[in-house]
């Protein structure tokens, strides 16, 4: 028996969340007195997981799995879980992983708890804490099935080093054509820019910015900070920004270290989706805007004055701290 963790990668390199879920899995393994096995697809640095407490990596090398495919990946993970007689399977909260998680749950007849924010409260019975109602509450959820699947919220547990040696083993899951009956034909993605899911910092603009032509300064601020750009729902509904940038209860969730909201009023649906960010900054002309009640730092002021000043100041700061 061991703990199985699915460590996600992109172009052969682990994503940041892989180290977070590995760290989380190590904590669970410690509680249960067992070890962690990772399953990874087409990675070149599998042994680096040892730094986060993983003692074995099932490394899959397969050209058919270079592009993400939920069913094929899920079936490989389920097969790995069976092979390792894993009692707990740890997953991230990326869009891809949330796609495959229910398939794994169904295949393993396992209870799946998403949005988990801390190490299990107890292991017998098995209880974890997760967010519910779009971050407006927490639940203690007990899992009654023999195998348990945990989806760890982005950035909630953190990356913890816990050095051990990871033995890398080749693993060839038995896949069939039917695993590929859902085919990816075209991927249209932003490259070379932080994504809302992975970024440490997210810079977000709302209707207060008046129009799409004013997003230059938002992009520039994001550039200086190495941040992802995001927006409120009406901004994407009006086509000022792409739909994928819409954050909030009905858009993407944000759980960054720093979230900067510019010209966003702070409607309840917006706040629900961004509230798990650790530090929130608001820049808004209206001191009564609800966001001022939900943020850590704020400037009451006109974005068209404050943002350019902030960009200059940050450039200076970066130059000094480089």
């Amino acid at each position, binding site marked *: 028996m061991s703990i199985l963790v699915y460590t996600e990668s992109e172009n052969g390199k682990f994503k940041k969340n892989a180290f977070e879920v590995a760290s989380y899995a190590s904590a669970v393994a410690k509680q249960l007195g067992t070890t962690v096995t990772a399953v990874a697809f087409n990675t070149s640095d599998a042994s680096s997981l040892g730094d986060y407490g993983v003692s074995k990596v099932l490394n899959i090398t397969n050209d058919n799995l270079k592009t993400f495919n939920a069913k094929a990946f899920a079936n490989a993970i389920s097969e790995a879980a069976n092979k390792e007689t894993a009692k707990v399977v740890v997953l991230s909260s990326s869009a*891809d992983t949330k796609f495959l998680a229910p398939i794994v749950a169904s295949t393993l007849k396992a209870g799946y708890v998403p949005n988990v924010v801390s190490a299990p409260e107890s292991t017998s019975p098995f209880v974890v804490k997760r967010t519910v109602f779009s971050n407006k509450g927490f639940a203690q959820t007990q899992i009654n099935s023999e195998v348990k699947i945990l989806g760890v919220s982005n950035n909630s547990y953190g990356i913890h080093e816990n050095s051990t040696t990871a033995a890398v083993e080749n693993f060839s899951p038995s896949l069939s054509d039917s695993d590929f009956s859902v*085919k990816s034909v075209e991927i249209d993605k932003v490259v070379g820019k932080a994504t809302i899911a992975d970024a440490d910092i997210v810079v977000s603009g709302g209707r207060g910015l008046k129009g799409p032509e004013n997003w230059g300064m938002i992009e520039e601020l994001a550039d200086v900070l190495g941040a992802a750009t995001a927006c409120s729902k009406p901004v994407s509904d009006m086509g000022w920004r792409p739909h994928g940038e819409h954050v909030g209860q009905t858009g993407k969730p944000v759980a960054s270290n720093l979230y900067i909201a510019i010209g966003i009023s702070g409607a309840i649906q917006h706040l629900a989706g961004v*509230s798990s960010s650790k530090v929130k900054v608001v820049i808004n002309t209206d001191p009564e805007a609800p966001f001022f009640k939900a943020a850590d730092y704020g400037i*009451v002021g006109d974005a068209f004055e404050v943002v350019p000043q902030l960009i200059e100041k940050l450039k200076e700061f970066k130059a000094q701290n480089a």
Partner: protein
Amino acid sequence: MKILVCISNVPDTTSKINFTDGDTKFDTNGVQFVINPNDEFGLTRAMWFKEKQDATVHVATVGGPSTESTIRKALAIGADEAIRVNAEPTDGFYVAQQLAEVVKNGDYDLIIAGRESLDYNGGMVPGILATLLGMNFVNTCISLEIDGANATAVREIDSGKEKITTSLPLVIGGQKGLVLESDLKIPNMRGIMQARQKKLTVIEPVDALKATEDTKFEKPAAKGAIKLVDNVDELVNLLHNEAKVI
């Protein structure tokens, strides 16, 4: 084409969330329930298939009698028939097994569900349902076209979008984007009158695994007061030295 839209009954997004009975239950007092917003996009897309491709559209929910006003709303929007499985939807695995029975008995080609319910944010019912039924599955679906047995979908990924081809029978987890916000259907008087005559079948649940249960709830800790600053120098200083995020 026969479509089933799975409707989750959730608190209006503006609801204040409170817990009761020693923090073991969600307090429904004063809460207005609505069609889960992700399902509303799916239902509207289903109406498009009904109008343009002659599809038959049924809706199903797993829930107690109090969910009937929400399903009536789906009928008023234009669904042809509704099914309610009379059980409390406390676990996603359980709900998916109940819906799988509905699908088996109804011979549906396309199951439209939502990416997640905005109450417990499970994000699992469509994926489990598809796997139980051996159907194809596309999650975070923002566009769907059907041509005979072929389906073309677009799904949202973390860094953009992905175009997908697959075939019926298919389950999707839909969300905003499936139809334009401005095309969302609001029931009109005629729809509401017609909905009263439409068939709403109540069925009892089958025995099924309940994999999880929520034993206790809590609200997030109250937020400390905001620090207002009046210049960017001070802000950068605080973000660096106090918050340590830059």
